[in-house]
């Protein structure tokens, strides 16, 4: 089993190298989405592109979207609880030596914020509403 996995990994790397050198892409096809960083975020996943974010990309996104990470906030303990819950009930394997760095990344960049019992109204997009009629009248 172990040697099979090693073989597959080797095969995988070979294929990657071969593919990386191939130029069989039609010139008119849209370019593949490459990993890059826009406004500090990994453009493919929206993860904050600092620290060990690539470990998170490599270990967490096979089963769920990065959005499940980026929309959440938790302490180190909270993130660890979620990982253990995924391991116990959702089939996530042991993360081995990557667990520490992954939890560090999550606890650092997706830490809880204090919002109190009623957060402020934020990110309001202002627009002009005419007295003549709201946008809703057509819909009701």
């Amino acid at each position: 089993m172990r040697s099979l996995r090693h073989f597959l990994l080797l095969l995988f790397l070979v294929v990657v190298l071969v593919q990386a050198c191939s130029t069989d892409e039609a010139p008119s096809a849209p370019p593949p989405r490459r990993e890059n960083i826009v406004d500090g975020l990994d453009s493919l996943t929206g993860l904050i592109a600092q620290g060990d974010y690539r470990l998170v990309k490599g270990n967490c996104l096979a089963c769920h979207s990065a959005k499940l990470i980026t929309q959440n906030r938790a302490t180190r303990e909270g993130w660890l609880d979620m990982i253990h819950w995924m391991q116990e009930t959702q089939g996530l394997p042991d993360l081995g030596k990557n667990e520490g760095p992954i939890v560090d990344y999550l606890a650092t960049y997706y830490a809880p914020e204090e919002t109190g019992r009623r957060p402020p109204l934020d990110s309001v997009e202002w627009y002009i509403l005419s007295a003549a009629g709201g946008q809703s009248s057509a819909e009701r």
Partner: protein
Amino acid sequence: MPYLNRRRFLTVAGLPVVFAARLPAGIGLLGLETEDPLPGKHPDLTILNDRPVNAETPPHLLDQRITGADRLFVRNNGIAPASPPADPSAWELRIAGEAVPEPVVFTLAELKQRFEHHTYQLTLECGGNGRKEFSPPASGNQWSTGAVGCPEWTGVRLRDVLEAANFDRKKAVYVGYYGRDTHLSGDPDKVVISRGVPIAKALEDETLIAWNMNGQPLPHLNGYPLRLLASGYPASVSGKWLSEIAVRDRVHDGEKMGGASYRVPCKPVAPGAEVDDEDMCIIEEMPVKSLLTSPKTGAILSDTKTLPIAGHAWCGSGAVSKVDYSIDFGSTWQACALTKPANRYAWQHFSAQIEFPQEGYYEIWARATDDQGRAQPMVLPNWNPRGYLNNACHRIAIKVV
């Protein structure tokens, strides 16, 4: 070895992958797909998660009295069936469980033919709607206000079907459902979610096995071709892609009936408290709530100080008895006009005409009160570990210039 297409290779290539080589067939690294994750849905829905698909509806898109199929939120726990059934009329629903003498199977065609059809407008709200406001934060999809909607549903009464299966009224305690979605891990033996309701709720007139939403077949993401509907409870009791109903002689113990899932502390706890599983109780009726759907937040009034407002109000049992609004952060409240519900569990519509006293920044807060005198709180109500049942007042921002 699983097939990996070129795009997946390129994106996997640069990563310190320990997991990629073990990817089961058909599972890629997420966030890298380009297909529309919300087929049939309004483009302005907010996607919270694309695997599993979870998307909510901005308040102003819920202004319709009957929620359009393209605007009903999506809260999936697993992966919807890959493709719709070739022949939906052959879709099978099995009735089983300890309180059924022997399992019975009905096809969708049989259900339609054999039982009386009923149409109700039924509110469906995710138990975690409003989770985003929890502090300390609660894990899970960070729903704002839009995991709710109220379409018209057509189907047969669960009661009629259970009676046809000759269920044992004395033995029956609970019903539990099973559906044909797939676990995120891809493991076909894992149940995604299997919840249900107490037998009394199951036998209510409005508890339906439904195939139509607003006169059309259910949207694929909302359970096509068949789903359960038990309005007033968290939407997770209303199973999608419905394949089996178990009539249980005990409280149903399916996936996501235990632990912290859809359960809250039996006794109120301090924010951030750790709560043992044995001290958690299943959520039943949802609390009274309302949503301001018109105008959209952020309206600037330049040629008037008068503003018509409108929205909906609902609760998990009984009815909403009044809705008030405040433009002074709850120091004073004014009554809104409020309609009666189309039927039990349909949301009610409120409206008012606001006269602003002068120019400035205002927040309009809406507050519904149920027929037991319980009002929406202005602040987060009881904290709970998973962030359920936040029915704090909805509010929008307005400027009069």
